């Protein structure tokens, strides 16, 4: 049985069926991401403290550039099919898929960096001060407070905060992935070697210190359970990453089957590329909104 209206427009809609189908699907995607963006905004405006500068802007910028470039190449791939040139289609589609893989690789690296970066909260102020001094010297408590004020932009607001919220930020020796206090204690570990982040305005890490786990109230990597910020950050970016992966798989299928399709049904294949390109553009457009909201504002 032949599927109708894969090439010619359907008289009542004026569109071939796949195009109407992809737009209906994209409408549901708008609602999905719209709901998550709304959640982000509501969580943020309702929060007492919201961190800034937790993500690398140069890395985010690079990924934005990669996705914009991939949208250009996917359109070029489609345009070359329209012009009857499947050879150039292969070239541009291969670049599109490489861009997608590049984006996902960079995103994975970003996740890895977060999963090995830790915040440590201590049981009481006196204990915290002892470790702040051990890490940064006599001016330790001021250095840590300055990093805290900078993270939450408290110099720009009148927000009040509990000094007990101030944490030591840095890396555990050996860079364990996504560990926490419960797991470390379960492994019968009593201490950890910890290197704090450089003080504000410096790139030099202070020397490594030993932290007794009995002094620690909470220890968390930058994972979804760390805070509301990371929960919504990982939810939205992971969902977006899955869309990139799904889109790349479909486009890769088109790339590897172009010879067969081009002989059998060139116009239908060109329309399929257009539909794939529409999805790809939607995924990239989501990132165009995501990048400023999560990385910059």
């Amino acid at each position, binding site marked *: 049985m032949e599927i109708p209206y894969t090439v010619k427009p359907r008289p009542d809609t004026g569109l071939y069926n796949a195009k109407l189908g992809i737009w209906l699907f994209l409408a549901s995607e708008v609602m999905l991401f719209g709901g998550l963006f709304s959640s982000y905004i509501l969580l943020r405006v309702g929060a007492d403290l919201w961190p800034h500068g937790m993500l690398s802007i140069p890395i985010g910028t690079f990924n934005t550039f990669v996705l914009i470039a991939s*949208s250009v190449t996917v359109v070029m791939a489609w345009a070359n099919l329209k012009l009857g040139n499947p050879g150039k289609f292969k070239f541009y589609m291969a670049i599109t898929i490489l861009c997608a893989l590049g984006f996902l690789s960079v995103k994975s690296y970003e996740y890895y960096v977060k999963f090995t970066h830790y915040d440590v909260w201590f049981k009481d102020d006196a204990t915290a001060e002892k470790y702040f001094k051990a890490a940064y010297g006599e001016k330790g408590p001021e250095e840590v407070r300055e990093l805290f004020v900078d993270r939450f932009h408290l110099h720009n607001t009148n927000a009040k905060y509990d000094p007990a919220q101030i944490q030591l930020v840095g890396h555990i020796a050996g860079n364990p992935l996504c560990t926490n206090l419960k797991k470390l204690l379960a492994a019968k570990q009593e201490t950890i070697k910890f290197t704090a982040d450089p003080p504000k305005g410096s790139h030099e890490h202070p020397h490594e210190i030993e932290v007794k786990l009995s002094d620690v109230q909470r220890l968390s990597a930058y994972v979804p359970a760390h805070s509301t910020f990371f929960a919504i950050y990982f939810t939205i970016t992971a969902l977006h990453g899955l869309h990139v992966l799904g889109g790349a798989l479909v486009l890769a299928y088109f790339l590897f089957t172009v010879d067969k399709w081009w002989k059998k049904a060139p116009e239908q294949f060109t329309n399929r590329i257009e539909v794939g390109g529409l999805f790809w553009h939607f995924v990239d457009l989501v990132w165009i909104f995501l990048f400023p909201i999560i990385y910059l504002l």
Partner: protein
Amino acid sequence: MSLKAFHVVFVTASVLLSAWFSWYELSRYTDTKAAMDMWLGIGSGVAGVTLVAYGIYFLKKLKNISYL
């Protein structure tokens, strides 16, 4: 809406993002004096101008293809 029309929308959004991001980074540079902020600001501005030129080229190249 065809891929052509959606691409025009996408390029327009990208140009707006580039322009805003360029302003954002150059404003930050006036505070931080960090070379990275300056280069990101300049790079983003250049990318925005390049995208405008590309958009015009794209519209000329695909003038025979429908927006629907």
